[in-house]
């Protein structure tokens, strides 16, 4: 492969994320019914369906793509994942405004996105949120790039780290969002947001593996 990620690849990533969320819709809703308001699966599928409807014709570049994705999510998800995932993509766009997208540039954009989510949700590592998947995924991405990995390799490392982060949310007591009202009772369940965030990175891994 060339080492660069095309806009078509990024569009394919978003489509793959939509497909993955559809596939796991019932699981996300079940997880959310255990510690939240039981709408994560339906909200995310609704939001991502609205996103995919706006990707034809495909946006001209990565910045336009992520602006469209972000604005559509903040408007059509309905729950807290709307402003959180929406902010993630809205922050990614400007970080990719110029030049080719390689593993370093994509990592920088992902970090801008996650920093946006942290600023929006005020969550820290260990609060039992999507940050518990996203934050270790970014660190794994950067470590892989530092060792010479291309984007596909970095995405593989990031997806693995996200899944470990997701699994580690199970014993945690939630400190953010609806689940925090449950206190100790939120322990013993995977966090729905960390679960969908892992799907996001697994979709990127699969898309870039196919593109290679």
């Amino acid at each position, binding site marked *: 492969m060339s080492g660069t990620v095309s806009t078509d690849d990024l569009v394919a990533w978003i489509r793959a994320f939509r497909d993955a969320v559809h596939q796991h819709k019932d699981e996300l809703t079940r997880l959310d019914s255990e510690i939240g308001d039981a709408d994560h699966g339906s*909200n995310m599928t609704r939001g991502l369906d609205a996103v995919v409807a706006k990707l034809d014709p495909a946006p001209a570049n990565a910045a336009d793509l992520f602006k469209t994705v972000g604005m559509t999510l903040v*408007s059509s*998800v*309905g*729950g807290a994942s*709307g402003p959180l995932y929406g902010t993630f993509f*809205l922050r990614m766009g400007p970080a990719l405004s110029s030049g080719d997208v390689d593993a370093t540039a994509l990592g920088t954009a992902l970090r801008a996105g996650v920093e946006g989510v942290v600023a929006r949700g005020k969550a820290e590592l260990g609060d039992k949120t999507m940050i518990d998947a996203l934050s270790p995924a970014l660190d794994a991405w950067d470590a892989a790039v530092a060792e010479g990995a291309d984007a596909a390799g970095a995405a593989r490392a990031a997806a693995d780290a996200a899944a470990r982060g997701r699994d580690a949310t199970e014993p945690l007591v939630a400190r953010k969002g609806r689940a925090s009202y449950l206190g100790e009772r939120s322990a013993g369940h995977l966090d729905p947001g960390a679960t969908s965030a892992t799907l996001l990175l697994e979709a990127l891994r699969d898309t870039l593996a196919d593109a290679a």
Partner: protein
Amino acid sequence: MIGLVAVSHSRALADAAVELALQMGGENPPTVRVAAGGPDGDLGTDAVAIAAAIDEADSGDGVLVLMDLGSAILSAETAVEFVAEPDRVRLSPAPFIEGLVAAVVTAAGGADLAAVAAECATAGDAKRRQLGEDDGAGVSASGTGEAAASFEAVVTNPSGLHARPAATFVKTASRYDADVRIADLDAGSEEISGRSLLALMALGVRQGSRVRVSATGPEAPAALAELRALIEDGFGER
């Protein structure tokens, strides 16, 4: 006058809360826009709709946004990124209902954005005081050293200074360039600001109670004259 935006997961909840608050807005209430409910009319919030509501509510004096919980807060914060004049938008930490009521009354009284936001920020205190869990919050320090003019009068309203007469009192007091204060003499209360609806409601002045209203500032005499007439007239409730 500043504008208000009510953000809720539920359209029905927001509409009812706004109706409740506007009952106390008098003849000239502030503009209140609702941004509530999810994309399909279900429970949820929409940052783009909130941004549009903020722009509609802004007449140039700014907008205070009241929110219920969870994604309403996240969506409102996101919406500020999309509005035309983000510097004129404040998000209130007040509880939704209490905050809306306080915002409508103080905005109708002509208070600016900072003053309305400050009043709303203590909107949760009134209930705490009424339930006897007073921690002293919201009772502002009295007196500036300047000699205050004052009068004493007996409240004749059957329910005392309940919400509606209290709102009338606050709106009237807020119209004058004067620091108006009121104390319930029978209850031996501290003086509280006559511009704070929630503090006044928390005072819980009952029918037959004697109050002392005092004021300092350039328009103190006029403020006291009108407030005295209001109390003696039973706020028009008779």
